[in-house]
Structure formats: structure tokens, C-alpha cells
């Protein structure tokens, strides 16, 4: 594990190897899975996390979402940063690189 990560718009987020972001077919829901951990996600979080691929920066993720939902990029960027920071504090997101 690395030191505490401060999410900014230039960071490329990714899931650590032991963390899986998966769709449960029977329950029809996206969840984050880690040893002894299970995180249920709201629809906005799911939209964001679907774009976390270890290549896109936080800024690119926000701009794609702003296009998709036709919403101001500034607001979305704040939301994305906040959510990823929260997940990173819990050890579910790390920086690629």
C-alpha cells in the first residue's frame, strides 16, 4: 500500500488489485468487493466508477460525464473528486503510476 492519496484532477485513478468493481447479475447491482468488505453504490458512483480504467485522469472522467449528462463540468469535477477521495481513504482507489 502507498501513502495517503490526495485526489486532484490530474491523477489517474485505478482499483487496487484486491478490489473488484463488479456487477452482480442476480441482484442487478454494482458493488465494490474486497476481503471482508462489500460496498453498495448509488447510481452516480456507478457512473463514475465505470470510467475508472487506470488510463483516464479525474479531469477526463469528469468531462465525459458532463457531456453524457449535459451538466456543468465544474460541478461534476467536484463530485467526482469527492467521491474518489472518499473511496481512496477507505483503500478502494489508488493512483496509477
Amino acid at each position: 500500500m502507498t501513502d495517503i492519496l490526495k485526489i486532484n484532477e490530474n491523477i489517474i485513478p485505478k482499483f487496487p488489485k484486491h478490489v473488484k468493481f463488479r456487477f452482480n447479475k442476480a441482484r442487478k447491482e454494482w458493488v465494490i468487493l474486497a476481503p471482508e468488505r462489500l460496498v453498495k453504490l448509488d447510481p452516480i458512483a456507478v457512473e463514475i466508477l465505470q470510467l475508472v480504467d487506470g488510463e483516464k485522469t479525474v479531469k477526463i472522467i469528469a468531462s465525459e460525464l458532463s457531456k453524457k449528462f449535459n451538466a456543468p463540468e465544474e460541478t461534476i469535477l467536484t463530485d467526482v473528486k469527492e467521491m474518489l477521495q472518499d473511496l481512496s481513504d477507505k483503500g478502494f482507489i489508488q493512483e496509477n503510476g
Partner: protein
Amino acid sequence: MDDINKTKLKKASEHGIQAPLALLAELSHRCPLQCPYCSNPVQLEKKTGELTTDEWKSVVDQAVEMGMHQIHLSGGEPTVRHDLEDIVEHCTEKGLYTNLITSGVLLNLDRLKKLEKLGLEHVQLSFQDTDTENADRIGGFKGGHEKKLEVAKWVREVDLPLTCNCVVHRQNIDNLENFIQMALDLDAERVEIAQVQYYGWALKNRAAFIPTPEQLDHATEIVEKARIDLKGKLVIDYVIPDYYAKHPKNCMGGWGRRFLNMNPKGDVLPCHAAETIPHLKFDNVREKSLKWIWENSEAFNLYRGTDWMPDPCKSCDRKEIDWGGCRCQAMALTGDAKNTDPACSISPLHSEIFSMAAEEARRAPPEFIYRRYGVRFNSPI
């Protein structure tokens, strides 16, 4: 005994309970170690009774259909099974988050490489102490500790995430800081510091394990400090012995609410210690589907929800928080599984049992009763 009218037992769906989240699969009770605190039942299952590869695969299919997320492959020692690779492959193909809980001593680098390729997602490796000699004495297996250290390196070498499982008690609790350091040195993501939970083998050995309240407070301080110092570097999960807690733990998230456990021969249990409650009748996956069992099995429905509770739990505002604590502990210590878990400070038996345990902690520890097949006990505790 139980005077609940069994015909009126509510089923899972009538309690508003959804499918379980995870399956703890005890692939085998065989294990080269003999830890005297082992959570397996005192009556160990023999190899001949174990489910076959295909039977486990079918269980996995059913678990996925029900919507379960995770599977913990455990034991005994799951790596004694030569079909572990087949089972892992099947679990990951079906999309279950697959975790291996092992003592490690039977593993080699090639096998780990293979398991990683097949999609295994996480390894939990148990440690008995950080002191080599004492670790081997506790596990009853010479050379075990050295081997585990090597296995931990291999786990990281094949880039599998690692949790160190450390069971602490009066005979190793002074090494708590070393346990945490060991986890850091081994590049683990996570360390589980669990105090012994007293049922089955551990209850028979309670006097050998139970720490004094002072030892425990000191341990808790160390963990709390380490959690702050190592935030973002190492996740520390900590379980205190609930003898010394004010309220009992929310055991398994409530009886039959979130998890299920399967023993090697396919009995489906609400928790790994449920076989210590003698009047429970378990259903088996050789006869019924997992889904049917979760919904209907009497062993689950007997203690689901809160209808079965006597006072003080019945009129307590925490009854849907801790669900009255651990049924197995209530059984072991009060003789009736329905009673309030005596770990709870509200239980009328709490102070008596607590002081008995604290008294044991002050005396010199007795010899271990090792976990072995066919051990006979003269005086049941």
C-alpha cells in the same frame, strides 16, 4: 431445550431477509496444524465424508444464482484438497470474489502461481506468533512458522494481496507490535488481529488463552495507535474477546441474516460454530438446494429475527443491533442457546462468568488440549 413452536417459525423472506452475501466454505477439516483455539467443531469430519469437486461446483453455481458476492475457501486446511484449483477456477469464472484462508504450510510457489492465474483474488495467511518457537508450539507443527514466512513472500511474489490473520491471546499478546511489524515487512494489505473466541476447542482451552483485562487494554492501545500511524499503509481489523466488552458482538451480522457456512460434508450452518448447539438440525446440500435451505432450514429460522428472544434481550433497545449476541456462546456458557449471550453486561450470568474467566487469566496457563481427530473429553465444560 427449545420450546419454540417450530411449525410457526418464520422463514427468511418473512423476516424480510434477502440472499446471503458470502459463503464460508470449509472444504475439509483435515489440517496439519493443531491449534488449540481452532474454530472447527470438536467432532471433526473425516475425508471420506467430504463433498466431491462436482458437488462444490454445484454449490458455487447455486450461490451465484442466489446473488452471493464472495466465497471464502477455508477449512481446516483448504489446500489439502487436490481439487482446490478446480474449485477456485469455477468460483472466479462464475464471478465470485474468491478468498483463500490458509495456514500456508502445504503451499508452494508453483501452486500459488497457478491459483493466481486461475483468478484467486486474495490470500489470508494465519500466524500463531512472531516468535518462531512459540508459534510452532501453539500450532503444534514444527517448522510451520518459517514456512509461513516463506509462503507470505511467495504470495506477494505472484502479486496476490495478503492479509495476515493473527489470533492473539495471553501466550502471544506481548508480541502484538511485532505482529503488526511483521505484516508490514511481509507487504500485507491488511492484518486481522483477533482475540480468541471461546467455543469449541477454544473453550476447552480457555484458561490457557484468556488474557487479563490489563493485557487486553494494553493491546487495544497498541492497535489504536498503530491504526493512526499506519493509516493508508496497512488496514488493521481488530476483534476483542467479547468477555471483556460491554455488549456482545453482532455475531455474523445476526443469525441467518447475511452469511452462511458449509462444513466439509455439505451441512449448511448459520455460523461456523453452530454445530456446538446440540439440538440444531442442519440441512445438507446433497438433499436440498442452497436456496431452499436459506429460506426454510429450521437451524436458521429458530433464531432469526427477535421473536425467539427471552428477556433481557426481548425488551432491550439493542436487540436489532447485536441480535442478542452469539447463540453458540450462550449455549456453551449457559446451557441454553436462547439466553442472552453472557458476554453482554446485561446478562444475569455476566459477572459470574466474567470473574471466572478473569480468575483463569491470573493463574498460570494450563497445558494445551490440541485440536486432533478423536480426542476424548472426560468432563465437558
